[in-house]
């Protein structure tokens, strides 16, 4: 029988524990990696809007109503204070109608811009404290008590939607939240309620998608590429677009079908990234560190004996 000193025994046990912990962590990472890169689907009750640019007459009733319902001061600066005339989304404007016109071909189209309420939003994935999050009905909501004002949502949003109050104390992130504060009362957002031509309508996302596809099927060749923008773009959005004019010309970027957050999730999730990986690295580093620590101690003892110098860590 071999007698071990207490220290040697501890070291052996410690080594075994370290190996076991590292092995367990690797297994954990493997399990976590298996559920990697999940593709998210819209919730069953997800609501959204369908905007059909061929029906829009550019009356901007939706813009005025949006300001009213959301208590935003009308942006009159571009018209020298005469009337509400926002040129783009900003902290006073959650919803805007813009005109695309190509003088060469005479091609024109209106486009309505507001938050797309992505199925798997980049802004939500980016937000460090879940200030932006998917709420009821799949609406992307902002919670001011959690927002640190880092503006990562602005960097992450492929549609350039969230706006930041640069000139305010305690600045807010401003963007369309589908009038969630009046949905119970009105049953729909301000913009769809006042639209005189039905260019923008509100409803369940699956119903709107079916409606859009029906319109495309009824008038083949009219809509750009015979397809619905937002069905698959960036993993799908809850606001859908139909247009004669190519979507990119309306400022709707050509995006891959893969939601950007899905690409960043394949690191193995929380367990892999913040539990398994650190444990494995720690165990490995510690093993080598302690080996070199012994070399260091010999060196320290030598220095002390030969020169009387204390160690310097």
């Amino acid at each position, binding site marked *: 029988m071999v007698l071990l000193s207490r220290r040697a025994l501890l070291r052996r046990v410690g080594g075994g524990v370290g190996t076991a912990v590292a092995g367990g962590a690797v297994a954990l990472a493997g399990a976590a990696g298996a559920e990697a890169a999940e593709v998210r689907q819209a919730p069953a009750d997800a609501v959204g809007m369908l905007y059909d640019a061929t029906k829009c007459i550019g009356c901007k009733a939706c813009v005025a109503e949006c300001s009213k319902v959301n208590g935003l001061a009308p942006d009159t600066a571009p018209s020298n204070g005469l009337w509400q005339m926002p040129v783009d989304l900003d902290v006073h404007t959650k919803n805007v109608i813009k005109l695309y016109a190509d003088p060469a071909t005479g091609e024109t189209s209106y486009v309505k811009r507001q938050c797309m309420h992505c199925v798997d939003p980049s802004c939500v994935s980016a937000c460090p404290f879940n200030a932006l999050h998917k709420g009821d009905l799949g609406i992307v909501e902002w919670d001011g008590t959690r927002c640190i004002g880092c503006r990562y949502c602005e*960097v992450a949003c492929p549609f350039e939607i969230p706006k930041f109050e*640069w*000139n305010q104390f305690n600045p807010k992130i401003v963007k369309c939240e589908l009038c969630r504060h009046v949905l119970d009362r009105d049953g729909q957002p301000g913009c769809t309620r006042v639209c005189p031509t039905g260019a923008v309508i509100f409803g369940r996302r699956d119903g709107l998608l079916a409606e859009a596809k029906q319109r495309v099927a009824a008038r083949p060749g009219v809509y750009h590429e015979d397809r619905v923008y937002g069905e698959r773009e960036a993993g799908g959005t809850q606001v859908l677009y139909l247009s004669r004019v190519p979507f990119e010309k309306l400022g709707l970027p050509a995006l891959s079908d893969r939601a950007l957050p899905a690409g*960043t999730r394949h690191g193995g999730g929380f367990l892999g990234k913040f539990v398994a990986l650190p444990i494995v690295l720690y165990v490995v*580093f510690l093993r080598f560190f302690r080996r070199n620590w012994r*070399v260091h101690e010999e060196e320290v003892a030598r220095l002390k004996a030969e*020169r009387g110098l204390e160690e*310097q*860590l």
Partner: protein
Amino acid sequence: MATSAARSVPLPAPRRVAQEGVINRWQRGVPVHEVRVVTPWFLFLVGLFVVGTVLGLARLLGGALGPFTAMTDAYAWGVWKTFNVMALTALGSGALAVGLASWVLGRHHLHTVMRTALVTSFLFYATGLLGLLTDVGRPWNFWNILLPWRWNTESALWEVSFAMPVYCALFLLYENGPMVVERLWSSKNDRIRGWVRMWHPRIRKTYPFVVAGAYVAPILHQSSLGALMVLAGHKVHPLWQTDMLPILYLVQALVCGFGAVIVVVMSSCLVWRRPLDVKVLGELADLMSFTTIAWLVLRLGDVIVRGRLGDAFAMDRWGVLFLLETTAVAIPAVVMRFARMRATPRAVFGMAMLACVAGIAYRFIPTTLAYAPGEGSTYFPAVPEVLITMGLVAIVVGVFSIAVKRFAVLPAPLESWYHSVEHDRRLSAASRSDAHGHADHD
């Protein structure tokens, strides 16, 4: 420790020390003594610091970001994040790079530059965090960090805002601790000495266990800094946008870590007239070169695998930028492969400088020059923004210059150590003979 050693052992004969010095010039951290802290340069740094601090406080107390910055909704991140946090903390990765090399890979010669790396890293991280504080619009909501159920662990920025303060305030302070404790030991106050006597063995006992963790933390958040831009998707030019960004940022941090330690330690030796240790510098340059080659393999491999090599030779501004950047990264790697170049301090210094500049450029470009959030929007930092950034850099340089004069940071030959101990002894003798205890020696 320091003084007790000197007290118990007589000074060795100078010739013996000199001989030893030839073998290995850097043996020990030694304070820069007989040099004043307050110099004209230092006052210039204090000036920058004051301007930056006043502006920073005005920005924080005023609350609004607009009046102080040129940022817009399109360019929502300015130099405070993209330069102070995302680029400059690469220079603060010396503690990680040199620590891994010396403690984990067993390059024992490098222990002599470890303190320089630790002080530099702490300062770059601390000022990076100050930059982050100045940058965010609602800093008071940081209390959410205390509520785990509010964390979005999927967010790279959560990881950065959680791990960077922890790394800086726990690990880097702990690692810098022995240097301070050593200094306290030379105090004449018995209570302080008793405190040191109690804590020193505890630090020694926990040292490997804590410091191994100090290498895990930066590996996580330096890669998260790269992950930040992945979510920006198509807004970042395809030559830079890749899922490999986290790994590329991490490896680049190691390159910059080695480079920054070379630059800092060599310029300090130049300024405060210390001999160089060609062997240690050569080893650092060697590691820097190897890490850079690994980075180049990853970088070019990634561009080729994604089929974007054509963009590099498109001769548009991004292609040219890519070629310039890659060349600037590659030159130090190639030059430092030659042993003769590694033995030439001038070459080592120049190449380390170039590596740092190129590394910072690589980490800065995806957020600025190669970032295109939409037509018509531009960003160039506003004057207050730049002044605050300069104030933060002034803190790094200024506090470093104080630290090396008050603590045993910079490496030196043994004879300097004895010289410094002798200097200390003269100082305390002078203060004892002076009734008011004021000896004006800086």
